């Protein structure tokens, strides 16, 4: 493998790090910054309190104002660092604020009350992880139930889609028959109509078939995505016909050819489609939103978006929920991406 890909660019001399390697690593590091940075920030932000999320300018780490418990006061008092005035440099706790003046005390000497201008101080902040964003999710709704629904829909729909689409792609790439181009064009043609518009007609069809408020109403229409057929077909074209002919000589049935030869040889494309299908179904929102109305059937995406009201959105819960729903597919992706590299390059030796 190593020789194979380095030689794509690095050929002259066998020096280990060619300039193209430097460029590649430079690009990838920029990629981490640009592509992954925002995602990382999202994760950090999910640990911020609602008030911290609203603050300008946004901070990288979740901060909250430090407080101190002072004898004689029930609630902890917020701490400030004095930046000017006669108490400059001291750390004081605020009792109350009236307009531009604040009454403060030194936590070490709680008896003495000091009056300061609010312009002379800065809040003292510390890092605070608002884990309650996460824990409240589990109290608020049946998280496991939604997780199970999402998983069931994703797994079943992906399996169904992979099987049905790869069969169709096989037929469209390795057989000569009348109407082949027509079928292919119709498949691509339906892609042209945006999902937004088809939603209502599709809803009427699915309701007519009695799949309203059933997980199958999400699974089955999802398996008919045209993209998969097109993607797999274009990949299968590149598999040499000689391999099939040889198998036919050995009197292998067509199904066996499909299953034993085409599918393994298309592994990279199938892995890609599997990743995409899992992602599509897992993140699917608009369609489940219209088909599923009973909370026992809800998916994680529906629960996630239920934090969006008419006039207000509960961002802290929404972000925490986003991170939780992101974890499973991120894991699945890291697992499946290995299979992209096991195509003809490694199995095609036969």
């Amino acid at each position: 493998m190593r020789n194979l890909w380095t030689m794509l660019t690095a050929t002259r001399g066998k020096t280990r790090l060619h300039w193209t390697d430097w460029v590649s690593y430079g690009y990838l590091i920029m990629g981490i910054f640009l592509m992954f940075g925002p995602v990382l920030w999202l994760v950090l932000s999910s640990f911020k309190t609602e008030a911290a999320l609203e603050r300008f300018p946004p901070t990288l780490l979740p901060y909250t104002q430090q407080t101190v418990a002072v004898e004689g006061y029930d609630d902890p008092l917020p701490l400030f660092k004095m930046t000017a005035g006669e108490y400059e440099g001291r750390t004081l706790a605020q009792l109350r604020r009236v307009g531009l003046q604040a009454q403060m005390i030194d936590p070490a000497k709680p008896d003495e009350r000091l009056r300061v201008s609010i312009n002379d101080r800065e809040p003292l902040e510390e890092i605070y992880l608002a884990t309650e964003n996460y824990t409240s999710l589990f109290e608020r709704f049946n998280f496991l139930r939604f997780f199970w629904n999402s998983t069931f829909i994703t797994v079943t729909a992906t399996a169904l889609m992979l099987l049905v689409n790869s069969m169709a792609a096989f037929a469209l790439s390795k057989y000569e028959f009348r109407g082949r181009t027509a079928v292919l064009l119709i498949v691509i043609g339906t892609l042209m109509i945006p999902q937004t518009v088809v939603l209502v007609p599709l809803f009427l069809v699915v309701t007519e078939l009695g799949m309203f408020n059933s997980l199958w109403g999400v699974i089955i229409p999802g398996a008919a995505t045209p993209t998969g057929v097109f993607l797999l077909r274009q990949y299968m074209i590149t598999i040499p016909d000689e391999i099939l002919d040889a198998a036919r000589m050995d009197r292998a049935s067509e199904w066996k050819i499909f299953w034993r030869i085409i599918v393994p040889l298309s592994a990279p494309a199938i892995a890609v489609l599997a990743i995409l299908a899992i992602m599509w179904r897992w993140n699917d929102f608009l369609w489940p939103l219209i088909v599923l109305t009973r909370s026992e059937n809800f998916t994680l995406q529906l629960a996630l978006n239920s934090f969006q009201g008419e006039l207000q959105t509960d961002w802290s819960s929404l972000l925490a929920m986003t991170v939780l729903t992101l974890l499973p597919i991120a894991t699945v992706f890291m697992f499946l991406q290995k299979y992209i590299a096991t195509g003809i390059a490694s199995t095609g030796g036969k």
Partner: protein
Amino acid sequence: MKSSLLKTSALATVFGLGATAAFAADEVRFMCYSDGNECEVYEDVLSRFEADNPEIDVIVDVVPYQAILENLPVQLAAGTGPDIAKVTDLGGLNQYYLDLAPHVDRGYWESAFGDTLNWYRGAAGGDGIYGMHSQLTITGGFVNATLFEQAGVALPASDASWSDWAAAATKVAKATGTDFPMAIDRSGHRVAGPAISYGAKLFDDAGDAILVDDGFTAFTQQFVDWHNDGTIARDVWAGQGGATYQDAAQEFINGELVFYYSGSWQVGRMDKNVGDFFDWKVVGSPCGPSGACSGMPGGAGIVGFEQTKHPKAVAAVIDYLAQEDVYAEVTARTRNLPAHSAVATKGVEFQDASPAAADALSAFAADLSDVSPIAFAYQGYAGNRAMYGITVERLSQAIVGELSVAEAMERASSDLKAALEETK
């Protein structure tokens, strides 16, 4: 082999779960959306109802607001809607509503909810009882009192006009180095109050919607001018497009905004997120040159649908929520303004609200008396959503300069005509 066995049994469990969805006799589905904790509170209150009425099982399904706005009408048309829902398109969905009148005490409902019952009757009119207005909202101004104090500018009086406020807010912003003097939410509903104060009638003498008249144009001109001279934060109206809603609460919370025109539903958020950062208060709606000082009422309500299999149970649930003590409790816990007259008269002891928040809610409630009859009519008009949408889209275009004010008014007027034509 073992793993495939495991998989099959897992599948069987799923089918099993699907099959056990056998229903109790009277299962009532309540499709609810939250702007705060409303659905949680309903669920809690209704669990007591269920204890008293074991033959009725109420299930609250919490959905995104988008589902109520876009999908509910489709589901109702297909006959697959829920039994009860919390809605905001009060008059527009009237054709699907269940008339509660045969099942409830008409006298009680009429005295409790009065005029708001009209909002649910839509274009059809009549005297049916279709919905309970669960939360009343009213638009009004929030001011950053600390900034006024810092600038040494006195707060304008309660009968101050929009221009007085604009002048005062600009002075404060200049003196304190604050980014924006004023902001108004990006919503057709929010600017309706000020427009009415500027003399907009919205309807012609025959009661047909026209939206654009001299008063509306006058307000639009002023509004666009304020955007151009920096009185109003451009970010809110010019930073967005289409009919999307955008508020300026974040700017206000960060002390970058002197005067913010929004509504009573923001009180909870301000209370929680401003904290001790500055003092804020609610000043109601400023007045226009025509002398009116109108805000815009609004809110959400709970309705039952005709296609339910259990009309009696549905009516019982909604009637329970409409009872004075229950209504008062829900209002207190969700920190909303009551639409129930008896609850409103007695006053609500808002739960966990700071003194500032309680004052703010009272100020909003007091401002209800200033609301113009046109505003009430507008809120009750079944086609108001179309008008809100047109307002936002065309005003934004005038603000960013894609259209002149005159062109925008012409477009708004013809948009409305086309919409009315289509739904006739």
